[in-house]
């Protein structure tokens, strides 16, 4: 069964090998700035924005590892906690999300790749997904 976004308008999941999950946001030509998630209008100028598909790989700005439950649904690490990071995408936005791995796996400045992760399942057995980041494996 396929992976599909749990909500429309935030991400693209290609479901094809070799193609990356991408976040979708807004670009303001007037301000020459990009935002995530999508904005109704440019928060700086008030002018129109257009959809933009962001790069899949960004840079880790900061991280933490939580030992307390998260509000909502949680993919717990083996020891009961989970990582959270802020990832700067090349187009500008800073994305705050769950990061895969455990204490010691992350370093500020490392490359992180956007990934889909299962939050729930629909009646047809499709995986309803949100997004997270995983450390980029150097090839």
């Amino acid at each position, binding site marked *: 069964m396929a992976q599909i976004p749990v909500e429309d308008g935030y991400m693209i999941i290609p479901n094809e090998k070799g193609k990356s999950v991408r976040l979708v946001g807004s670009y303001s030509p007037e301000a020459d700035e990009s935002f995530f998630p999508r904005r109704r209008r440019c928060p700086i100028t008030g002018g129109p924005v257009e959809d933009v598909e962001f790069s899949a790989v960004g840079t880790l*700005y900061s*991280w933490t590892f939580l030992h307390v439950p998260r509000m909502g649904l949680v993919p717990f690490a083996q020891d009961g906690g989970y990582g959270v990071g802020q990832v700067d995408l090349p187009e500008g936005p800073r994305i705050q999300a769950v990061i895969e791995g455990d204490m010691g796996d992350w370093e500020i400045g490392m490359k992180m790749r956007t990934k889909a992760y299962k939050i729930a399942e629909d009646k047809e057995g499709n995986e309803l997904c949100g*997004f997270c980041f995983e450390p980029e494996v150097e090839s």
Partner: protein
Amino acid sequence: MNRDVYVIGVGAHPFGKHGVPVGDMADVAGMAALEDAGIKFPDVDRLYNGYIAAGGMMTGVTFAKEFGLTGLPVVHVENASATGSTAFQEAVLSVAGGNAEIAMALGFDDMNRMGGMMAAGFSRPSIDTVLLPAAFFAMWAVRRMHDNGTTVETFAKIAAKNWNHARSNPIAQRRSDHEVTPEEVLASTMISYPHTSMMACAAGGGAACALVASEEVVRRLGDSRPKVKVLASQQQSEQYTKGHVFMGAVIGPSEMTRTTAQAAYEEAGLGPDDLNFVHVHDAFPIEELMYYELLGICGDGEGDKLVAEGATSLGGRIPFSPDGGLTARGHPGGPTGLAQVWDATQQLRGESGDRQIPDARIGMCHMVGAGSVSVVHLLARSD
């Protein structure tokens, strides 16, 4: 402000996990403030209730009926952690603008009820699975450690200081029976690296109240104690910065605190060197450390030095959170900002007992609220 505003009365119900019904706590705090001011509820022209999780609609106006059916306007204010501060600001502005001679800001809440409320709100699978504020502030801390070489010991020293400040505060949630050491703070349970449970703010229930009034009322009441004047009342929401985070329950750019404080300094015509003490939103010690710099108490990157010197402890150059702060006095939600005003008013009157700051003349109350907003008040002793 169009005309001068004074704090004429404060009251509070102790913070803690004592399970006292919120309505009872609100009543205790409100009646204590009225008694402190030497007035009766019918003297109050406007009431601003501040609560987040205390109850659903009608809660504030229902509680107000216990004080009396006087027909006064009653408003519910909510701004996350800055709820009490925002209710206080609304009360101040109503007097400053001439819409009230006496206004009441009453905060009450029980943070332990929030878990269920929030969980219910996010039970539907959604992409915006809210990350705890604990995660956000921990990421401030990790980045600070990377950029400035700040150590976990510095965070532990700040938290231990606030635990010890709360020891003589009768409304504090965490009143340790011994001097708390940084080692003890570091040895407590890890919550969100690098923050441990003793660094995290105390979540419980409580209530706090402040009454503000015009100069004419102050003159009429003839209170012989030192007067407490509101020198500045400022609130800001987020402005766009590079790396702006839009999604998740976050406190916005830290610069918001700097610009709100600058606006308050300008309104009052003074600067950070004029302050005798500061109350901040110290939900985690990284916040207090960064606010030393953002409020202009020291230069950027010099906060760690301030901690090493003990400058922000009682007895130091500029005590921060002299009542224990969110760390140890507690953070029930709605009343938190008003508990700052409660303590600041007593400090300025010289009524703070063991934690009294000698000759305290000007104090700051700062809060941030998720979403997000920043609120800064400057209060001064006015003889």
